[in-house]
């Protein structure tokens, strides 16, 4: 039972992070290698607001969430907007450079030591007993619920919201969408904002659950595997991919070797790239054979 709980929690983490990759890739065909760093930044923002509004934890969380949205929009407006139409490599490298810059800045501002935003917010994190002796910490439970909530909201937004429909249109055919009056810059900025927002929520909850330091970057990078396994332009795929990768990782840690945890997502990724490079639910249009 405990294994299933572990898989669920890890899958929720991956799913919440992976939808950020999917949102940006789906709309602008850019792979955001700074996603882990942006998630980490969101968590550190929560740490700051928590020390600022000590009496009102809800205000602190709301402020941090809004700030992370703004950060995402700013990253697009200030930097990534200039990379439209450039080579794939240039765009990827820009996001990598943003990641390095953020890593340095985070250490400069908040120091490299491990932080505990949970205590700053005066929350406690008791573990809850589920059926059959399996335990889950409160924060992890909130994380799973949050993932369900975020995915529900995203599905509704992309399906029914007018901005969501514009977003899908921009992803399918940017030229046509622009000619029909869709403001591409606004759409791309929104995608970056939403992606950073969801990533930051994941980062905050991970930080609340298990403390906050630079290792979050690795989780962010590993979360790319579920996004690709599911198909880079499919939200359903990200969810399914997260479950697959999380299951593979937890089982490998439990039955083979704990050291494998950093490699398993990438092994799954390689296997997927060999068999079906466009992912389980992705569209295969841009991947023609040589």
């Amino acid at each position, binding site marked *: 039972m405990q294994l299933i709980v572990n898989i669920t929690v890890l899958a929720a983490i991956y799913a919440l992070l992976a939808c950020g990759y999917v949102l940006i890739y789906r709309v602008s065909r850019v792979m955001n290698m700074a996603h882990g760093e942006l998630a980490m930044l969101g968590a550190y923002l929560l740490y700051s607001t928590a020390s600022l509004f000590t009496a009102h934890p809800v205000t602190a969380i709301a402020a941090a969430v809004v700030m992370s949205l703004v950060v995402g929009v700013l990253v697009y407006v200030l930097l990534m907007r200039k990379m439209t139409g450039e080579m794939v490599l240039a765009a990827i490298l820009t996001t990598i450079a943003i990641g*390095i810059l953020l890593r*340095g800045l985070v250490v*400069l501002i908040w120091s490299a030591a491990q932080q505990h935003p949970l205590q700053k917010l005066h929350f406690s994190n008791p573990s809850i007993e589920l059926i059959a002796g399996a335990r889950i910490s409160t924060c992890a439970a909130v994380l799973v619920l949050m993932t369900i909530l975020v995915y529900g909201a995203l599905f509704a937004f992309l399906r029914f919201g007018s901005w969501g429909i514009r977003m899908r249109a921009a992803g399918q055919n940017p030229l046509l969408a622009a000619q029909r009056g869709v403001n591409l810059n606004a759409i791309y900025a929104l995608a970056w904002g939403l992606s950073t927002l969801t990533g930051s929520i994941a980062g905050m909850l991970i930080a609340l659950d298990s403390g906050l330091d630079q290792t979050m970057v690795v989780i962010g990078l590993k979360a790319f595997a579920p996004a690709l396994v599911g198909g880079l332009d499919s939200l359903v795929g990200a969810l399914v991919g997260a479950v697959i990768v999380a299951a593979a990782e937890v089982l490998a840690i439990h039955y083979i070797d704990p050291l494998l945890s950093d490699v398993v997502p*990438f092994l799954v990724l390689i296997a997927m790239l060999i068999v079906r490079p466009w992912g389980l639910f992705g569209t295969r249009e841009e991947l023609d054979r040589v």
Partner: protein
Amino acid sequence: MSRQPRASGYFRTGYGADLALLGTRLERTSLIVFAIALVAFPFIASPFQLDLASQVFLAAIGALSLMLLTGYAGQISLGHAGLIAAGAFTVGILFQELKAPFWITLPAAAVVGALLGVIFGLPSLRLRGLYLAVSTLALHFVVVYIGGEYESRRGFSTGIVIDPPKIGSFTIGDGRSWYFILLAAAALTLLICLNLLRARTGRAWRAIRAHETVAEALGIGIAGYKLLAFVISSAITAVAGALFAYYRGFVSVEAFSLFLTIQYLAMVIIGGMGSLLGALLGAAFVTLFPYLIEGALLALPGAQGYAGILFAVNYSAFGFVMIAFLIFEPLGLVGIWQRVQNYFLLWPFRHRSAAGAPR
């Protein structure tokens, strides 16, 4: 190698002249002066400067090989650190298990690199752009994991120590002999790259980079040349890793993080895509950059207080410079260099006049 035309009346009249590495007397003289300067350098430099120069040469070998792959053949690789690690670990493992001398380990590293190049290159036959980048990134993690696994299984959890290489009774240990060895290795790599690029192989790579379908229509075997690019680049990179292992005398997985890959990519980008000179300039820039930052920071008042945050300042400054180059100077240092050259070539005019005039 088609270079841009010059201001003087130097015209190439045959294929031989177009292929020549050193066309004019000025080029020959400046090369000789530069070579003399490089040879004389270790006799006037301090040990610290020697170490810096050796690091630049090591980085240059890796950057040149990445430039072949990414800058000329157009294949994106995020697995460069994995290949360097493979070379270094080949040396480490062969030395620890068999006490193999360097004239066995270096070729072995090249062979391992070439084999890994096939593995890294196979996805490129099917994947492009972003997907290729991701698959090489994944392979990087696999290689580093295997290296780490070897370390922990065999009980070298802190790293593998390697004795300095011996030729007969002479041990290569001091900075000056390392300087010359690495200089020779870098020069040899440069020569190999130049020769590859002015021959059939290089032309095929550039055609693939420009347009795959057109290249195939011209009769270029895409799959073969792509794999060849990966194999050659990986073999050179692995040798660079092997030299790195000998130079440091120590191999540990911590040295081969993703950041190393990013540094090499930064060398290629900051130097200037599609230019061997760019790879050299980028290697020098990226290697020396942290020391420049450190020097600048320590020159500020209250220097001791900054020592703890040096690492973070380095990271931020490095990211900042990389973003600046990507956005404002995509042609890199070579682009700046050519603009300066053109400024003097065209002076007192600001723009080129008509067709046929130098760019």
